[in-house]
């Protein structure tokens, strides 16, 4: 089973992502801040990370840059989960090293598609 780490300080967004991913068969873990995520990743391996950008403490962009520095060959798939949808904001997110961006408010299928573009979305539907 693929594992996804969700880094999100807002409970609604975290729970939306957790429920959508877990019902589609992913194993999920949720942390509220990027520095907690760094601690989590020191002892756990994940296949993908869905992270908020604007959080207390370390931003999602800084978190992504640090992961690429520490794991240049084995960085998990990085997905930004953000309300920043303007072109310049998207560009700055991509430059930080993200593989995909999901704009809030996000549809379930957008989250699933960003985490694994090749996965059959019908896995989520009962």
């Amino acid at each position, binding site marked *: 089973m693929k594992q996804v780490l969700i880094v999100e300080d*807002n*409970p*609604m*967004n975290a*729970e*939306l992502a957790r*429920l*959508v991913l877990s*019902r589609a068969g992913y194993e999920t873990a949720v942390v509220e801040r990027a520095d907690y995520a760094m601690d989590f990743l020191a002892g756990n391996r994940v296949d993908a990370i869905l992270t908020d950008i604007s959080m207390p403490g370390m931003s999602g962009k800084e978190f992504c840059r640090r992961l690429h520095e520490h794991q240049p060959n084995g960085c998990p798939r990085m997905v930004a989960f953000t309300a920043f949808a303007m072109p310049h904001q998207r560009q700055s997110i991509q430059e930080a090293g993200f593989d995909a961006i999901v704009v*809030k*408010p*996000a*549809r*379930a*299928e957008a989250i699933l598609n960003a985490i694994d573009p090749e996965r059959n979305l019908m896995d*989520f*539907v*009962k």
Partner: protein
Amino acid sequence: MKSFATVVASEMTRMPPARPHTYNDFDLAAVRDVIGERPDVLLELVMLANKVGGEQMAEVNASAAARDLARLRFAAHNLRNTLTFLHATKAMAVAERVESLATHHEYVIPSELLMQLNVAFEDVLADLSYFFQFES
């Protein structure tokens, strides 16, 4: 023996409303569109929104009373996020206004605005109550 009126009254309590219900400020169709074909996920998330929304509204009121702008900004932001999930556009716009005032260091948040937010949020809660009773 039950009177006709008693029977009719008890039947009416079990009957769905005669006309389609119009929500004040909760776009159920839009939320369903976000979630997809998973009524279990929909119900869990609306229950969570109902719970955390109440906590967030209380936090907005407490931080405004304490004149703690950083706390108020964060509380209004979180409430706005929850209202966004519910597609509660009227309440969301008021929460956004409170967040904006707190962000720009307005030391006095107009009491009318806070009252407006509380009233708008009550409308959302009434909608959620209807949802839990008849549509979940």
